């Protein structure tokens, strides 16, 4: 049966995959908040959340319930539709990235050959870049619609920070694309599975730049100036309450997961388990091992994000801009020139 000349089985397969990926990301994000509090507690030598459930494992559920139960407040002077649109956009933009991430190689279920990727578009990396550049709208619209001076100031900060660091991020990506010769994330991961080394070996400086800019794009400390509480009270989500606030807080964690997945796929072999021959086991088991490997890599990156957050204090605003424009962009340009020179020398 076909609807509008599309295969129905194909549509169902993709819908199931989208549902799994979205709900898995939300679930992981839920427990990332718990992980963050535990990591912070360990780094600060205190026990952290420990009351709700064994080892405090039910804490995220309690937090979520608390957020939902809070009263929903829309300020009188706020621009109502945009005020509601803001958190929704932030959440959508952070979830949209998952469409092009290859979560594993293919599996065979019920006689169907299913690629563990929602869409293998031939411009995958550019798609990610486009979604990242959309992410700032959630913050800007929410901050402006609140009709609050602090929120507006924080929205402006978020925009200028995002634009500044997107440039360096794009330049770091160009150097990577010069070595891979493909924009499809699936192809890039497959190259690393087949080849000897992960891309981080060829692009160490590019990875460092990408990591720092990704941290800035996620608004993580030391780059969390848009929500600097001692200067801006609470930042762009000051007027928000209940689950709208929850969406903003949650979007940050999903951004973190997605950028970890992107970094793992582009620089650290994606679902490639090192020193392991995928052909030696059945394809389905190899695919599952691949998914597990990617998840472990993501968790390691998230831990790195948290470790940095609870170790390094926040930048001053001029330091942030100086780092972005005077250090990151020249370094990224240098990396690009170096990569080009090496490629030319090899020809």
């Amino acid at each position, binding site marked *: 049966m076909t609807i509008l*000349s599309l295969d129905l089985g194909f549509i169902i397969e993709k819908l199931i995959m989208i549902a799994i990926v979205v709900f898995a990301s939300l679930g992981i994000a839920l427990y990332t908040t718990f992980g963050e509090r535990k990591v912070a507690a360990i780094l600060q030598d205190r026990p952290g959340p420990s009351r709700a459930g064994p080892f405090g494992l039910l804490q995220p559920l309690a937090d979520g319930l608390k957020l939902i139960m809070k009263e929903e407040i829309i300020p009188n002077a706020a621009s109502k539709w945009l005020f509601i649109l803001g958190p929704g956009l932030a959440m959508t933009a952070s979830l949209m990235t998952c469409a092009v991430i290859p979560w594993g190689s293919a599996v065979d279920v019920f006689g169907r050959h299913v690629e563990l990727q929602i869409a293998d578009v031939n*411009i995958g990396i550019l798609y990610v870049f486009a979604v990242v550049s959309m992410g700032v709208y959630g913050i800007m619209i929410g901050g402006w619609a609140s009709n609050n001076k602090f929120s507006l100031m924080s929205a402006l900060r978020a925009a200028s920070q995002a634009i500044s660091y*997107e440039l360096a991020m794009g330049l770091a990506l160009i150097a990577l694309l010069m070595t891979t010769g493909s924009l499809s994330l699936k192809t890039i991961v497959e190259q690393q599975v087949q080849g000897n080394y992960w891309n981080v070996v060829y692009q160490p400086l590019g990875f460092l730049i990408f990591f720092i800019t990704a941290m800035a794009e996620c608004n993580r400390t030391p780059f969390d100036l848009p929500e600097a509480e001692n200067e801006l009270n609470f930042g762009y989500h000051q007027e928000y309450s209940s689950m709208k606030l929850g969406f903003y807080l949650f979007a940050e964690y999903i951004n973190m997961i997605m950028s970890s997945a992107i970094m793992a796929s582009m620089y650290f072999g994606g679902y490639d388990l090192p020193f392991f021959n995928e052909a030696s086991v059945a394809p389905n088991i190899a695919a599952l091992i691949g998914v597990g490997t990617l998840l472990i890599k993501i968790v390691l990156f998230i831990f790195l994000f948290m470790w940095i957050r609870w170790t390094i204090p926040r930048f001053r605003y001029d330091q942030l801009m100086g780092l972005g424009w005077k250090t990151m962009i020249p370094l990224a340009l240098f990396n690009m020139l170096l990569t080009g020179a090496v490629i030319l020398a090899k020809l």
Partner: protein
Amino acid sequence: MNTLEILFYALSAFAVICASMVLISKNPIHSVLWLILVFFAISGHYILLNAQFLAIVNIIVYAGAIMVLFLFVIMLMNVKKDNEPQKKLLTKFIGVLAGGSLLTLLIALVKQTSQLEGKQVLMKEGTIGLIHPLGKALFTDYVLPFEISSVLFLSAMVGAVIIGKK
């Protein structure tokens, strides 16, 4: 009607509605947000023309960067509905008349051109919008115009830095 036609008409209607909302909206911030939706509709058209690279670059450059700067400037100037200068009725009337005549003229011109007669838009065909053919075309057939335009951008950038330093 096949899927492509349905998508084409839906996207076109969406683009036209959003573009009219850009003009109708009283609040400049709302105008910018509608304009972003117009860019998304245009990107949809690019995808229908099998030009995925152009579609995504359109979103990155226009919707992702330039419109953020638009929003940024409007938010910084804090333009509001109340303190926007109100035009006189006569000025509005003349504006509508002039704009309407221009539109009629343009439509008449497009309808008269002989090159467009009997031609159909090629949907889902052609490869010029994909990254490899486009890169080849830009760096072989059109390398001189491409480099000249990049020099133009560079001079604009240098000019902006010099003005900013004053």
